[in-house]
């Protein structure tokens, strides 16, 4: 047991280290962007005096490593700095957006993950049969279509006929049930995009396990095929499946910009795109760091889950 705690602490430490390196990378790449922030802000009024004043005000006259440490220190205390374009604290901008993004991610995950697991298990049960081929072909077609295309197809079929709204413009006061209704189309679009990957990994991981002697043993004990897959194969195929699920969830948090735009959804992705558009460096840095944390955190979670579901790691002799 203590082995596992040690392992988790080690992974946690590595995760923090990864994030530190990423923050440095984000900082340096923004630093390397051409042009001067002060001049961009001032535009026409960029006289040398004004530029110097602004630089002093934003702390741009300090050496790079001091600015990095200040930025990092602020981040750790939850202070993301101020948005240059909107002149407001970034934490206030990010909080509702992050909430929305997490909501959409969870919503999609609740549909996509069970769907992918069930389809994957069914495909492995009827492998090389019609069900397997049809579900594989469908999933592959869904993943091959660009997201905006899927999004507009959804709007064409479900929104134009009036069943669901085409705009998912929610705010913090929207009731939960309404949120579910309004966000149905973006969630469905994202489901189509991520299910294929998870389903195919589930199928492959289970079929891999099905070739092992303990599966033959289960068959020779007279266990029904469905039970063999769910009780004997799935628990031993958890590790690869959990990892793919984690990668897809991370993608849902970070990569949904296009879907957000199609459905006018106020998520983090839009905030980042706006930040880039207006050269709002602190916003870009903050969102980039949140995305990075999502990736690192979810992968850490996947590692932990695949460890605690493996008795050989949990109960070492």
């Amino acid at each position, binding site marked *: 047991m203590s082995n596992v705690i040690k392992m988790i602490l080690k992974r946690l430490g590595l995760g923090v280290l990864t994030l530190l390196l990423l923050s440095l990378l984000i900082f340096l790449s923004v630093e390397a962007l051409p042009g001067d922030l002060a001049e961009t802000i001032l535009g026409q009024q960029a006289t040398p005096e004004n530029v110097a004043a602004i630089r002093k005000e934003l702390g741009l006259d300090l050496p790079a490593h001091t600015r990095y440490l200040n930025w990092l220190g602020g981040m750790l205390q939850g202070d993301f700095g101020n948005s240059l374009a909107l002149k407001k604290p970034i934490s206030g901008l990010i909080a509702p957006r992050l909430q929305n993004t997490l909501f959409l991610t969870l919503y999609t995950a609740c549909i996509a993950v069970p769907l992918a697991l069930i389809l994957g298990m069914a495909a492995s049960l009827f492998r090389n049969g019609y069900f397997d081929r049809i579900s594989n072909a469908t999933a592959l077609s869904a993943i091959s279509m660009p997201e905006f295309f899927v999004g507009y197809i959804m709007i064409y079929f479900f929104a134009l006929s009036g069943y669901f709204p085409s705009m998912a413009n929610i705010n913090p006061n929207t009731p939960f049930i309404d949120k579910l209704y309004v966000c149905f189309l973006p969630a469905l679009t994202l489901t189509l995009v991520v299910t294929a990957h998870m389903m195919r990994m589930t199928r492959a991981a289970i079929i891999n396990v099905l070739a*092992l*002697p*303990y599966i*033959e*043993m*289960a*068959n*020779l*004990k*007279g*266990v*029904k095929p469905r*039970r063999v897959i769910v*009780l*004997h194969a799935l*628990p*031993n195929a958890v590790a690869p499946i959990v990892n793919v699920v984690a990668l897809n969830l991370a993608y849902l948090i970070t990569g949904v910009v296009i879907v957000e735009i199609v459905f006018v959804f106020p998520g983090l992705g839009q905030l980042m795109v706006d930040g880039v558009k207006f050269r709002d460096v602190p916003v870009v840095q903050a969102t980039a760091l949140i995305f990075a944390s999502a990736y690192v955190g979810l992968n850490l979670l996947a590692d932990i889950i695949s460890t605690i*579901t*493996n*008795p*050989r790691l949990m*109960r070492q*002799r």
Partner: protein
Amino acid sequence: MTKAIPTKAKTKTPAKAKAKAPAKAKPKQGDILLQMRNIHIKGKSDESWIDIINGIDLDLYRGEVLGLIGESGAGKSTLGLAAMGFCRDGCKITDGSISFDGMDLMQMDKSSLRELRGKRIAYVAQSAAASFNPAHKLLDQFCEAPLVHDVMSRNDASQYAIDLYDRMNLPSPETFGLRYPHEVSGGQLQRAMTAMALSCRPDLIIFDEPTTALDVTTQIEVLAAIKDIVKEFNTAAIYISHDLAVVAQMADRIKVLLKGDEVEQAPTEIMLKKPSQEYTKSLWAVREHTRKEQPAVKNQTPVISIKSVTAGYHSSVDVLRDVSFDIHKRRTVAVVGESGSGKSTTARVVTGLLPPRMGSIEFQGETLPAQYQSRSREQLRHIQMIYQMADTALNPKLRIRDLIARPAKMYLGLTGKALDDRVRDLLHMIEMEPDQFIDRLPSELSGGQKQRIGIARAIAAEPTVIICDEVTSALDQLVAEGILKLLDRLQSELDLSYMFITHDLATVRAIADEVVVMKDGDVVEQGIKSKMFKPPHHPYTELLLGSVPEMDSKWLDRLLDSRGKDNLGDAAIAKMNKKS
């Protein structure tokens, strides 16, 4: 049908067993239980179907144990599984009839077959470690069949499991089932699998090489447990093995298979004393091959001298403790021991793969650097290795020509015509026709041929010493014998010394001049072969020697009588450790 073997083994409280077992009238002995007629099974190889079983008949009576014997590829497992109406993927039963207790298995649908499997016909697989699901506890796996088949409740099944675990002499039977498969030893796992097969009190159990992967001392406890339980429950069994001596202990009747055909069949006693077919006789004869021990040489610098070596892997535990022995010119030193005794670790120290914590290796009187990276090419050339799994030791992408040429080129600098001639010479030496084999890939060779290539590769470097690590363990007996004879011949032709690592005492008897017995990283006894096989022995050597099954169907019963059921395998070793 009466049992050929007299009932001597102590049966422990049969009354208690019957009370706890599900209510079922004890079947009468003597009725026919399984009747297989003219069975044909084909297997898919690439795109064509090849014959695996060509028309075998098999009868089995209630309470009878039938031994199936043969080399790999004989079709033993396939036939055993067919008795359950089961075929592995890529196989199909093309003809014949299988009748189990009056039911025609060939005509049954899948769900009726499932009803039989696990409930009335159970299976015990070769490797329990691979055949238990690593994700579930032993007890849950035990209870699965009774629950799936609705034979008893979870509570009754658990009680029954504890009862069986107790009968199988498993440690703390009350809590044994709460462990995961990786938490118990190989011998215990194999007994737990036998218990699992009994969970629904089947009429027939198929034992598929249940002790092949075990050490000899562990093998005995499993054999004793199986024998005891089969007798007590009057279960019919098919016992599949390539090891005659083992089958002789278990079976009432033996059937010999060769490449999918039946060679002959007879009651065990008759089969042992008077096999009628040439093939069976040749199987019997293998164990009689012995080489004359070569006279000991005195006052000569040993080729390899292992001096007080203590070594271990990453953790602080020492895998070897103060190991010392010498290997002299043109002699074979057999290093014997069970898994985990440190045999292969010794080989790793000698080759420089694992630097020792203390002690050193001397080659012809001169100390070798501890790590192979620091040894000169010439020093490396003198010590070569042959591995257990020829399959994985040969690069599958290289042709035989390149596999053998590489060491000749690297160590001796041969090129062009000289190199080609050398490769051909080497192939002649290992009795393989160069023109036929030189351009083949390893995948186009049989197991024995691959091992021969491994030998050719080792002697291509013109070494002084060859370390043979279980080189015959993965081979059939007849093929293994050929390899041993080849090694013998090469030794006298090339003045080689061998360090021969093995767990098989029959092999030691066949080839060794000197024997080193290892246990848990210590050398417990060493000496010349003729002395080692004569008493008095170190207690561990005695245990090892006494645990090797003999070609006598009464051997196990006698052994159980003399040692007692609670004094086998792990238990015996534990007791011995306490005494010393």
